[in-house]
């Protein structure tokens, strides 16, 4: 955090000054470790084993915040007797189909609800990254469940959890993660001692956590701990996801993602969502409790915002115009399709996949096989010049005279040359005023897409083809201003907020959305950002003039709540858990919820409110159910649906690992998303003996002075000067083993690529003792490429393509490689070197990465 989110880290330091204990877990000692009380070096890719160890520590010692857990979580809920845990299935839960590599979730359901599996089949959920939908709300399940408040029932969630993590002992944590038991216990003690009625503990993770084949389950494990300890919805608690780039949060809320529509509504699927009714009915479960039950109004209002007057209740709001998914249309599938010649044109909008995405060579070869490519950026990035300067030109794989891709480079406006909102990591929308016009031909994306849409509609005017109706009927009349005819960002924000169609009155919030066509709302979770016709995201009341929650700076979704589920900061009767940790409480006199933040609860619903059995929607949420976006109002320790690779997080080895999974026969996540394709490959792992060809673990992350793929930092003089060179950090022990010298060169080889880097020998990297072996890890920054003021080989070239099954994010934080002294070969010899490694590792068309781990061959894993 001190490295990649430095100004955010000032608050950790403030907390430390007030006595907070700070623990830092990372494969590499960083500036954060230097400032933490305790640093725990970890073997990359083993976080579930560490956190699972904490879950076990809490449960074995009964250190959970019992009142909170009983009232606010699903700990007491009884699970189907058909459920078989991964502990009893050697690493695989019930319902697994080895043919498809996917789970049927029927047996994971709550008791009595087996027929109600909220899931579609998980193969298609995986292909469409359905897990992402749950960023704003839980998975659908019926509202009524069986509970055992004594927590003794053998099939209640609490007991299942206890059995599941029983083997995640301090010894096991040491064996898997390489963290000494005393250090682990220090962490577990501090975390539990600093949670409860009087105290709260916070968990902070960054983008790297998501870049694993089990990324979602990492975060789930963190959520289980924070829920057991009563740290959710309370001040000083929670889980802070540090997003990596200015508006990453915004890019999922108002997604430019294939599988989502604004506000986490799903993109329609061809077989399950043939009609508007099928689509909306699939989104929420009949009888579901909570605010998500109003999804139909959000859907109708979105289509009304898209197609304006043309969208009517009679024509299902033009639902028939919507394109339909048939499977995985994600960025990695797209790139493989480019290589296979299936994609004609590609837009790159401030993104540099030639450096920033996994398997850079596949990215570049894909772009070299298009009809046309549009790159919109501030700078000439690698993705615009791969056809003349890329490593494949050097290796002879791309010959400019034979590369047919037509490239348009359009300069973009910078953040000060346009107005608009970012949504920052804390769900906070902040409006940026425009300081000046962009130079020359530079334009905003708002300009480019508004005018592109205008041109497309002009060219199609008079068309009678049915396919063109969606474009011609589109509501696309935004006011423009100034000599550049820049569309008004505020007008777009107003549409996102939503308005009453008849009067144009901006809506005050999503509760005003209607399903009869009388409201238009571009993104329901953002509704309220333009309440009363005021740009709430542009509020800048100085921090000294408001309370510490600072609710009048910008605007947070939903409804300007700064801490989600903050009803949980009060006890079931609505009183603060303690005076110290007071945040939101029930005011008996006034008959309403009050406190420092906007209550995340119906304002006048008393704690004593109990719905009639069978009541659905918000009215089905009891006065003591704080998790109002969940279908049962509870925080989920166990997820009966919504997570496609298991209802509980389980330790699997990274897909490329030099270690056998110490916990299960199953080596890697059996439900991971794999891409068998001639260009893609996975380095072998145990029990396959050829793992020895790639004996070292590598991980990548950021430098303070650079940013992601370097397009905004290698082109900027002060930043380029601060970190001018690609390098690799290795421990003194590994340097001695391989013969690397400090400030000399090394090259790293995987089954995909070979790259070179300057060597930095440092004890920031610790050789880890696991299972009686020494595991060496090396670290690389991933910012470098072949353009800009400073250049170097790209670390992401080393990775293959394998994804987390819930959200289709690639495993690009851990892989295996070989490392050798000296510079890499160049030209044709470079590919020959990779081919030689592939031959020795048995990588080729005949090798299939096993979904289910085959029985050990008897060959010893340990060298």
């Amino acid at each position, binding site marked *: 955090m001190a490295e990649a989110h430095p100004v955010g880290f000032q608050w950790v330091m403030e907390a430390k000054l007030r006595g907070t204990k700070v623990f830092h877990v990372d494969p590499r000692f960083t500036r954060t470790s230097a400032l933490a009380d305790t640093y725990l070096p970890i073997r990359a890719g083993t976080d579930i084993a560490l956190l699972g160890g904490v879950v076990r520590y809490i449960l074995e010692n009964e250190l959970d915040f019992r009142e909170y857990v009983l009232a606010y979580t699903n700990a007491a809920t009884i699970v189907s007797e058909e459920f078989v845990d991964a502990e009893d299935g050697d690493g695989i839960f019930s319902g697994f189909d080895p043919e498809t590599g996917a789970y049927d979730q029927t047996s994971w359901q709550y008791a009595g609800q087996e027929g109600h599996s909220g899931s579609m089949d998980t193969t298609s959920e995986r292909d469409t990254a359905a897990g992402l939908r749950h960023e704003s709300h839980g998975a659908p399940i019926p509202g009524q469940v069986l509970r055992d408040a004594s927590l003794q029932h053998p099939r209640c969630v609490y007991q299942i959890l206890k059995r599941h993590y029983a083997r995640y002992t301090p010894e096991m944590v040491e064996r898997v993660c390489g963290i000494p038991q005393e250090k682990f216990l220090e962490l577990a003690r501090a975390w539990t001692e600093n949670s409860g009625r009087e105290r709260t503990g916070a968990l902070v993770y960054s983008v790297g956590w998501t870049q694993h084949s089990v990324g979602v389950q990492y975060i789930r494990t963190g959520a289980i701990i924070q829920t057991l300890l009563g740290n959710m919805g309370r001040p000083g608690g929670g889980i802070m996801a540090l997003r990596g780039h200015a508006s990453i949060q915004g890019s999922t809320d108002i997604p430019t993602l294939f599988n989502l529509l604004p506000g986490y509504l799903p993109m329609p699927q061809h077989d399950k969502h043939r009609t508007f009714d099928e689509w909306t009915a699939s989104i929420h479960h009949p009888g579901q409790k909570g605010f998500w039950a109003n999804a139909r109004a959000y859907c109708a209002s979105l289509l009304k915002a898209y197609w304006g007057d043309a969208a009517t209740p009679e024509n299902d709001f033009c639902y028939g115009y919507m394109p339909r998914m048939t499977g995985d249309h994600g960025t990695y599938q797209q790139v493989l399709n480019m290589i296979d010649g299936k994609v004609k*044109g590609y*837009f790159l909008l401030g993104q540099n996949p030639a450096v920033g995405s996994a398997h850079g060579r596949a990215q570049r070869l894909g772009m070299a096989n298009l009809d046309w490519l549009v790159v919109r950026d501030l700078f*000439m990035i690698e993705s615009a010049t791969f056809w003349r300067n890329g490593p494949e030109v050097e290796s002879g794989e791309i010959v400019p005279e034979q590369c047919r891709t037509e490239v348009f480079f359009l300069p973009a406006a910078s953040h000060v040359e346009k107005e608009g909102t970012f949504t920052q990591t804390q769900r*906070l929308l902040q409006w940026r005023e425009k300081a000046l016009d962009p130079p020359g031909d530079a334009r905003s*994306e708002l300009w480019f897409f508004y005018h592109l849409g205008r041109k497309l509609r002009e060219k199609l005017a008079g068309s009678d083809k049915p396919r063109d109706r969606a474009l011609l009927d589109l509501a696309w009349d935004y006011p423009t201003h100034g000599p550049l005819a820049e569309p008004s960002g505020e007008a777009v924000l107003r549409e996102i907020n939503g308005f009453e169609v008849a009067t144009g009155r901006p809506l005050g919030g999503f509760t005003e959305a209607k399903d009869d066509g009388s409201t238009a709302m571009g*993104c329901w979770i953002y509704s309220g950002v333009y309440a009363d016709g005021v740009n709430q995201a542009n509020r800048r009341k100085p921090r000294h003039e408001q309370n510490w929650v600072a609710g009048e700076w910008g605007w947070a979704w939903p409804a300007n709540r700064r801490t989600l589920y903050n009803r949980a900061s009060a006890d079931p009767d609505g009183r603060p858990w303690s005076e110290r940790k007071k945040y939101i409480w029930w005011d008996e006199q006034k008959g309403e919820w009050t406190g420092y933040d906007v209550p995340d609860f119906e304002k006048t619903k008393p704690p004593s409110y109990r719905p009639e059995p069978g009541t659905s929607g918000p009215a089905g949420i009891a006065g003591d159910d704080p998790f109002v976006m969940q279908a049962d109002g509870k925080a989920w320790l166990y997820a009966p649906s919504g997570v496609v690779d298991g209802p509980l997080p389980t330790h699997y080895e990274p897909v490329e690992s030099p270690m056998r999974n110490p916990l299960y026969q199953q080596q890697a996540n059996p439900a991971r998303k794999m891409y068998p394709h001639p260009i893609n490959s996975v380095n072998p792992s145990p029990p396959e003996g050829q793992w020895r060809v790639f004996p070292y673990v590598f991980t990548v992350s950021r430098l303070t002075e650079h940013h992601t793929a370097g397009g*905004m930092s290698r082109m900027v003089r*002060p930043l380029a000067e601060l970190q001018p060179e690609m390098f690799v950090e290795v421990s003194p022990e590994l340097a001695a083993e391989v013969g690397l010298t400090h400030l000399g060169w090394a090259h790293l080889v995987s089954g995909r690529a070979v790259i070179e880097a300057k060597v930095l020998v440092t004890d920031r990297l610790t050789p880890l003792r696991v299972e009686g072996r020494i595991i060496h890890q090396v670290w690389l920054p991933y910012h470098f490429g072949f353009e800009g003021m400073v250049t170097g080989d790209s670390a992401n070239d080393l990775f293959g393509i394998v994804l987390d099954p819930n959200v289709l994010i690639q495993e690009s934080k851990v892989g295996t490689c070989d490392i050798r002294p000296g510079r890499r070969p160049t030209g044709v010899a470079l590919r020959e070197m990779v081919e030689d490694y592939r031959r020795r590792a048995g990588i080729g068309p005949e090798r299939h990465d096993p979904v289910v781990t085959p029985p050990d061959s008897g060959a010893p894993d340990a060298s």
Partner: protein
Amino acid sequence: MGIRTFIEGWPVYRQLTGTDPLGRGAAAQSARSAELTARTETADSMARSVCPYCAVGCGQRVYVKDGQVTQIEGDWDSPISRGRLCPKGAASKSLVNSPLRQTKVRYRRPYATEWEDLDLDVALDMIADRVLAARDETWEDVDAEGRPLNRTLGISSLGGATLDNEENYLIKKLFTAMGALQIENQARI
């Protein structure tokens, strides 16, 4: 120069007698620095903005003079950043004024070895034609069982996360109406 002015010119005298006993402010100021004005004071305008790098969302004040960004400072009113910027945020002025900034449309013909210039309006028109052609070539009306698809898989897009919400909104709206499903963002990566 009178003797009094001479003595008052000594920083140590000012430190001992003035309002700055620690000698970190007025007492240490030289005649030259007293004459300097901050770029923030002489700017023609100031815009309230936000850092474009990481997601912490530090507040920025962007000062402009004669059509140029002359200074970008941390916004001390911000409850998030309290006026601070890290090395990246502090380099924002060098980002927007970088000599490597591209300001002209560039065009590479198929099989060409060099860039050429192209007019922005022409480029927009050519891109619109290519979008429509790719769409026509790869359009899918229905699946094998006659269920609607309304789409093209012939067009892809990958966006970064310095795009504004308003921009993402228009992009998604237009691509959806075009039937172009394959739209992705750094948020996936």
